[in-house]
């Protein structure tokens, strides 16, 4: 072992001097090199949440439906009928920036194993992606690689990728975001936990062999490993989806056999984190021998085996008398299932290499002893400028320009159809996809029940950038409305907090504010946070990304036959807005319109009216249950006009046009209203619905009951989208063909440049 007192190897490993001192003090001695490596990975921001834990504690995590909250591998929610849904979102940003295909592919692999670790069968994937400007060649390379990586891995697993997001903006150019959500289904009694329970139980590694991949380069010290390890060092892992598919089937079979006491995926920090976390959860210790871990290449030392991030492996804690059964199932699926140690009562993680003790650390210190930081928070300078957007700063467009603006918005890669992405994903495998990607939230049936599960991911980073608390609340609200416009009730969320460096006070302020806004929205909408992931240090050359707290939401439809979708259904149906459309300059803050038509990212987004959002959700779910609505769509990117255009795009044959007048929304009554604000404003707590004329009274009665304003703005008719002002002047008419063409070809065109 190298003498660690000579130099400061912990610094190369990413530990601060103060953290090293803390380790020494708590351990009562100097850690050896292997131990130091184990601390370095487990005390990294990624594993220890050093900068975010104090904030995360403020999020609401409880609710009558929450079976398992944050702390386990994934949250679990009761969906009735003795069924439960495990779901979680996770980032793979940095690996994807280096090698987009493998980075995205192994991102899928990782989140799928998290869901598997809860005892659930992984059945649904969503991908939430952020890239730089589409005309940048680097973006095209990253975009192409990420999408085919998700397709390559997810399709092979046979888990449908049923939804997601793609958003392009300059701040993501050097640092794309790749967040993936996985959900799984199980019966209540199948729930498993990641705990190393039962002294004497056997520790097993199942799945792939362990190689040198993923051991972070900077943690190597050449004097320890020798010259030739230099060439062997690879920081990108290559995914093997075939192996993962076998791993899923094998682990589900092992769990069903009753052999598995505890189970944990091996993700970041591989064996070190899975051993430390399982033992810490159970309050036990583990003694393992790395010589017994199946290895891909010979001659790996304890340090390498403990830190390897080889993919497609799970750690199992198995009843001593069931080891043979686990081995038999492993062999059936052609997988390693190796006994590597035992659960002990020592409270320590003891690592042997062919019998020789290489490391011994208290698991509580390793898994829970990392310091927590509450850095300085300072309101960012840029807000002074961006907040200061006045009415007169936005040139009001001529009526004659509106059509062109609408078509440009529809063709904007942030709004245009994402079909070029999702047609590469097998979104139908498993035969449960009732509403796949393309229209809004995904609607999945649950075989054997009448139920539907509804999933969406949402976050508009531009809004969060301009007002972190409001933007994060909007992410929750938009997700909830996306779910509700299918007729489903939002149940719970998972989130992935993508931010820059928390050591920058302005970024920490963004993080703090965003968490506050998210927590507040979740409390009012009664959608607790069941888990998630934090990804910090997303920046290149001091250019931080837009703060992007992505919300993944789960909703439930009691009767899937009663679902609704955004497409207009019948000519003659009444079109109305539920909620409030502000229509003023402020509602244009951070809008796609402001960026596309005026080249501005500015304004101070209002906070969503959460009580109103709650009311709208009640109206939508109740109305859908009673079958009153023909269609429903929330208002988000692109505002009211784009929402209407989307209702046309998804409309039934013969019901693709509409004529509306926003008069009923207060146009002409309020001084501050402007046409572009009315048509393109995004920060509105509102949804567009259509319903047969004879149901108006009923709809209005439901709205009254929930205190939700209902404004009739027009009807389904013709084959174009037509808008009139209060004066009756037709200010815009666009044929549905033009709408379709802009919307369908926008993404491909912008990527081709």
């Amino acid at each position: 072992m190298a003498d660690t007192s000579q130099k400061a190897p912990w610094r190369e490993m990413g530990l601060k001097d103060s953290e090293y001192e803390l380790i020494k003090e708590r351990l009562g001695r100097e850690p050896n090199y292997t131990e130091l490596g184990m601390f370095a990975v487990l005390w990294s921001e990624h594993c220890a949440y050093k900068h975010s834990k104090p904030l995360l504690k403020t999020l609401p995590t409880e609710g009558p439906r929450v079976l398992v909250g944050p702390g386990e591998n994934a949250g679990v929610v009761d969906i009735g009928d003795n069924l439960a849904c495990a779901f979680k979102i996770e980032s793979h940003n940095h690996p994807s920036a280096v090698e987009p295909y493998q980075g995205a592919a192994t991102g899928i692999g990782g989140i799928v194993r998290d869901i598997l670790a809860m005892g659930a069968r992984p059945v649904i994937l969503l991908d939430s992606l952020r890239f730089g400007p589409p005309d940048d060649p680097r973006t095209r390379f990253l975009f192409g690689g990420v999408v085919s990586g998700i397709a390559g891995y997810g399709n092979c697993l046979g888990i449908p990728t049923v939804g997601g997001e793609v958003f392009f903006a300059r701040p993501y150019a050097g640092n794309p975001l790749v967040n993936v959500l996985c959900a799984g289904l199980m019966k209540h009694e199948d729930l498993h936990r990641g705990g190393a329970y039962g002294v004497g139980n056997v520790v097993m590694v199942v799945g792939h062999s362990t190689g040198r991949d993923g051991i972070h380069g900077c943690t190597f010290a050449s004097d320890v490993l020798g010259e030739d390890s230099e060439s062997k060092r690879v920081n990108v892992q290559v995914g093997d989806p075939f192996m993962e598919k076998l791993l899923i089937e094998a682990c589900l079979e092992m769990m069903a056999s009753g052999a598995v006491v505890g189970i944990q995926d091996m993700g970041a920090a591989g064996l070190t984190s899975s051993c430390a976390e399982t033992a810490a959860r159970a309050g036990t210790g583990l003694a393992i021998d790395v010589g017994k871990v199946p290895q891909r290449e010979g001659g790996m030392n304890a340090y390498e085996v403990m830190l390897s991030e080889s993919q497609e492996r799970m750690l199992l804690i198995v009843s001593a008398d069931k080891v043979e059964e686990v081995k038999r199932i492993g062999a059936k699926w052609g997988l390693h299932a190796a006994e590597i140690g035992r659960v002990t009562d020592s409270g320590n993680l003891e690592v042997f290499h062919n019998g020789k003790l290489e490391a011994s650390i208290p698991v509580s210190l390793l898994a829970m002893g990392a310091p927590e930081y509450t850095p300085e928070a300072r309101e960012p300078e840029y807000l002074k400028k961006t907040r200061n957007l006045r009415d007169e700063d936005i040139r009001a467009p001529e009526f004659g320009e509106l059509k062109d603006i609408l078509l440009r918005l529809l063709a904007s890669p942030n709004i245009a159809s994402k079909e070029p992405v999702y047609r590469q994903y097998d979104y139908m495998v498993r035969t449960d996809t009732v509403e796949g990607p393309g229209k809004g939230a995904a609607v999945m049936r649950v075989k054997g029940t009448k139920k539907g599960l509804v999933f969406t991911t949402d976050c508009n980073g531009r809004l969060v950038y301009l007002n972190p608390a409001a933007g994060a609340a909007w992410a929750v609200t938009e997700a909830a409305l996306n779910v509700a416009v299918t007729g489903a009730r939002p149940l719970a969320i998972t989130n992935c907090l993508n931010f820059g460096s928390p050591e920058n006070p302005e970024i920490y302020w963004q993080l703090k504010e965003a968490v506050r806004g998210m927590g507040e929205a979740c409390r009012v909408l009664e959608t607790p946070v069941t888990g998630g992931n934090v990804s910090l240090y997303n920046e290149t050359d001091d250019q931080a990304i837009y703060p992007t707290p992505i919300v993944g939401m789960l909703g439930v439809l009691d009767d899937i036959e009663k679902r609704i979708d955004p497409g207009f259904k019948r000519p003659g149906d009444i079109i109305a807005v539920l909620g409030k459309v502000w229509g003023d300059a402020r509602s244009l803050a951070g809008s796609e319109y402001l960026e596309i038509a005026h080249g501005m990212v500015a304004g101070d987004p209002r906070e969503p009216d959460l009580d109103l959002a709650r009311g709208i959700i009640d109206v939508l779910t109740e109305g859908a249950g009673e079958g009153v609505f023909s269609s429903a769509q929330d208002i988000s990117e692109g505002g009211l006009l784009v929402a209407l255009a989307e209702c046309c795009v998804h409309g039934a044959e013969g019901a693709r046009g509409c004529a509306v007048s926003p008069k009923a929304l207060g146009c002409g009554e309020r001084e501050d209203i402007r046409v572009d604000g009315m048509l393109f404003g995004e920060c509105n707590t509102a949804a567009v619905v259509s319903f047969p004329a004879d149901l108006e009274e009923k709809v209005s009665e439901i709205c009254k009951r929930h205190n939700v304003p209902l404004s009739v703005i027009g009807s389904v008719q013709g084959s174009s989208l037509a808008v009139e002002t209060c004066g009756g002047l037709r200010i815009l008419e666009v044929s549905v063909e033009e709408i379709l063409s802009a919307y369908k070809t926008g993404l491909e065109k912008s990527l081709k440049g």
Partner: protein
Amino acid sequence: MKFKGTVTVWLKESIFDPQGAAVKGSLAAMGFKEVENVRIGKNIVITLEAESPEAAKDLLDSMARKLLANPVTESYRVYVEEEKAGAQR
């Protein structure tokens, strides 16, 4: 002059090659017990115009670096030969 360049692209040695492993397994199941290891790479054959073998090699090298191989996970090699009319591959 016309050249036939071949760029062979491989996953770096330390990276596990799932394809190779699966093929090895099948070969073993088919009775080819003699097989110790299998790795699968790409072979990209490019016919091109260049002034000299060295120029051709430089061009191919640059194509490999920029497009044909991903330096993070792959390594490559470039071979050049003069293309004879009607030559057999």
